[in-house]
């Protein structure tokens, strides 16, 4: 059974800190890993990482895929209160049908 594990489950940081969120996975026929941000209701897409694109960056957020270690990290530098959210990691598991297997998420709270 495909498995995605995220750590830490939650953390609280001060505005301006840098945080690193972790995601490890056990899936067959890995194709891609995706990061989503869920502030209130609908998760919104951040990054997709594949074998041909193992590092992505957008502003203060960046993510790296380590296929050897079967893991990924999401870095947020100079955190702001608006970064407070649940960050979800998902891995694509193609087979008879394509679907994403999600981890339980990391709840990040950024305080003033």
């Amino acid at each position, binding site marked *: 059974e495909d498995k995605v594990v995220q750590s830490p489950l939650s953390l609280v940081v001060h505005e301006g800190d840098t945080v690193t969120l972790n995601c490890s996975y056990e899936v067959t026929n890995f194709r891609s890993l995706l990061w989503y941000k869920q502030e209130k209701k*609908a998760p919104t897409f951040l990054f997709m990482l594949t074998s041909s694109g193992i590092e992505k960056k957008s502003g203060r957020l960046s993510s790296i895929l380590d296929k050897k270690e079967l893991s990924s990290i999401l870095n947020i530098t100079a955190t702001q209160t608006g970064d407070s959210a649940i960050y979800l990691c998902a891995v694509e598991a*193609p087979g008879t049908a*394509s*679907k*994403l297997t*999600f981890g339980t998420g990391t709840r990040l709270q950024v305080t003033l």
Partner: protein
Amino acid sequence: GAGVSQSPSNKVTEKGKDVELRCDPISGHTALYWYRQSLGQGLEFLIYFQGNSAPDKSGLPSDRFSAERTGGSVSTLTIQRTQQEDSAVYLCASSPSGWGSPGELFFGEGSRLTVL
């Protein structure tokens, strides 16, 4: 539509009643997914549609759960004889991709179901 639309946004029902949750995906998206998110849990896959067909129903937790999609567009998730453990947020997502790779999913805001 501009985004994935779900209704109702909130539903409170009594144990044993049937409920229907609706999802209207982004126009032209062929793939549609239902996920469930319980308090403190990650997203749990329920069912996947490609067009009107459901090639993967492996996540439906029991035979009380069913879903259909018509016209390659709107989908309805039906839960019969609801139980308290069915309480969760039911998220719908769509993707423009066909067979092979879902890529990025576009999520609706979910339907929060509370079973008393």
